[in-house]
């Protein structure tokens, strides 16, 4: 009591202990969130950085790449995850074993696996083109030296790496649907498509959309899939905003790197705001 009174005569013991217990979190938040973000914004304060950023011929194609990457990779990934989640909910022993194998790409470390894919896709001596040449006596495609193809391969790597995780999430969502709903639908003579349309989708729609939003945010920051596979090459044509910042840091243009992040905020903040609103709405419903 004397201790709390010493801190503030108006604070109750409960409030004092609350403040003490929350202090480490506040400290960590200040040091690791507020300070770096503020410092980043401070570094990106010069309007000239944005002028030269927009003048850089690499910048606008990078923004376009980022948009295409987000729209295509995230949607394809979720369409596949939705489809595969319907498969993995089946209770068969071999499907369970298959699901263990399926999860491997998500579980293994990104750097060696993506580098391995990079070596496999080397146009001259990579495994894929060597096989194509051996089987068909023709040169295979320039997987990583043709910009659209390289961008597509980066998206495929992203999907390959993240698909197991999101499939698991949707499997969990499907497993939460009461079995009676499907039994009732069967009694009514519903087809598989009708069961999906009237039972499954309404039940997991919220989860699907929330996961998609979360994935959009994460994908916007996906550095590995692009940088480790293409390095932004050829000719800086496969950069996304996540890799462009690193390019500027390497070029001793820290202000440009930070400006790149600030430019990405109009993409990120609405997504975060929308997702938080959805989550808080869900919380209200469940409470």
């Amino acid at each position, binding site marked *: 009591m004397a201790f709390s009174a010493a801190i503030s005569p108006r604070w109750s013991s409960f409030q004092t202990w609350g403040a003490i217990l929350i202090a480490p979190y506040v400290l960590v938040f200040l040091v690791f969130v507020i300070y770096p973000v503020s410092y980043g914004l401070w570094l990106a304060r010069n309007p000239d950085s944005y002028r030269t950023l927009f003048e850089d011929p690499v910048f606008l194609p990078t923004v376009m790449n980022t948009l295409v990457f987000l729209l295509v990779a995230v949607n394809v990934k979720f369409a596949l995850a939705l489809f595969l989640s319907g498969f993995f909910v089946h209770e068969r022993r071999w499907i369970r074993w298959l699901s263990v194998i399926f999860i491997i790409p998500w579980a293994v470390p990104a750097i060696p696996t993506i580098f391995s894919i990079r070596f496999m896709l080397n146009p001259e001596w990579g495994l894929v083109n060597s096989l194509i040449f051996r089987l068909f006596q023709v040169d295979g495609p320039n997987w*990583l030296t043709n910009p659209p193809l390289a961008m597509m391969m980066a998206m495929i790597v992203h999907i390959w790496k993240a698909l197991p995780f999101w499939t698991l999430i949707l499997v969990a969502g499907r497993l939460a649907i009461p079995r009676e709903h499907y039994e009732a639908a069967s009694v009514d003579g519903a087809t598989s498509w009708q069961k999906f349309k009237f039972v499954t989708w309404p039940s997991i729609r919220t989860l699907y959309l929330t996961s998609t939003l979360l994935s959009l945010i994460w994908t916007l920051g996906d550095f590995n899939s692009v940088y480790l596979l293409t390095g*932004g*090459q*050829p*000719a*800086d*044509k496969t950069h996304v905003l996540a890799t462009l910042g690193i390019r500027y840091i390497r*070029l*001793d243009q820290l202000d440009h790197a930070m400006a790149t992040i600030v430019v990405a905020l109009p993409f990120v903040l609405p997504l975060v705001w929308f997702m938080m609103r959805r989550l808080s709405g869900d919380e209200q419903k469940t409470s």
Partner: protein
Amino acid sequence: MALRLTALVLFAALALPAAAQESIVVYWTKGFYPQEDKALDEMVAKYEKKTGVKVELSRYSPQESVPKAVAALDAGTPPDVAYGDVFDFQVAGKWAAEGRLEDLSDILTPMKASFLPVTLETAYLLNEKTGKRGYYAFPMKRQTMHIQYWKDMLSEAGFKDGDIPKAWNAYWDFWCSKAQAGYRKKTSKRIYSVGAPMGVDSSDAFYSILTFMDAYNVKVVDDNGKLLVDRPEVKKGLVATVKDYAHTVDAGCTPPSAVNWKDPDNNVAFHNKQIMMTHNATISIASKWLDDSNNDKLTPEQRAEAKKNYSELIATSAFPLKPDGKPMQYRSAVKVGVVFANAKNKKRAKEFVQFAMQDENLIPYVEGALGRWYPVTKAGASRPFWTEDPHRKIVHEQFSAGTVPFEFTKNYKFTILNNENVWAKAVNRVVVDKWTPEKAVDEMIARIKQVAG
């Protein structure tokens, strides 16, 4: 009480000498070979012994050296001395212009007579804050372009060294049409003849392309840093350069993946015999085998193979004669280190630089690179080390014929253009996007004017 007293005495005994010892923080690029690092360690140990100053040495890879220095500068805690293999290409001119570097004229001017031409001059940089030039960097070593090829692959293709033409077009045609075709026919292996680095993320690429530009006598900037790119003859030369450099991919003699190559990739392709020859900005390709031949960790068979590769199978050569029939004059990059203006211990930093620049310290460090780097001082270049070995002899001859500096020594904004690699981008436009060389050069010139105009 006794325990407290003992603790206090122990603390004093341990802490006071540590607090009393003066120190300097040094960032240095990690060597390519163990001998380089060893020579640096010995130099540091000698300096510490002589002065009593502790050197806190951190080594970074060439790629890391700029980001680490930038991060330290940004945090307000720069090292006292920093040396990076790519500082000259990427940051030294810019840092000097921004007033971030300490003027080293007081230690370098007295040593001026010991330097070879086109070495110390490249460190005479402009500080835009004061409007004055000064020696804002210290030169350590140099590099230039060489050609390396597999003699045994050439032999399997049905040719010998003497068959390689000396004229520019005939030279590249020989590798492209004769050597590659001969080797493929004999071995049925899908190898390529010319390893021409083209990656935008590669200093080898811009060094090679700029060497081609030199072959076409193109000067894009005058001695005062003024751009010359609007001159018709400059544009014509740039178009010829880009067309010529990109040609080997179109002709099927350079691997298509060369547009994605980073600096080590042409070395790797060469070592794996996936290419017959490559141009490289040092003789690191051959020197790798020399290093392996003395590597205790390898088996005797591996060492013997490495020795054979170095002494018998790999050749180092100069470029062919220029398209106008005259010999090439090579551009050399002078590798520099710096002392930062807001370093904590500038006095000792300068003292360390001065110590490092002494022949007895600099020569072992440069020679530790097995010929990869060439000296900046007369004493260093006059040693038998450079004439007794067939690879290093070629390097020595190339440098001895006289070199020219890079554009960024006249206009530091060319460091930005090199970082962006506008040169490789133009080549990529032709190779990847199938633009005409004229259109690619127009884009390149526009960017050069935008950045450095």
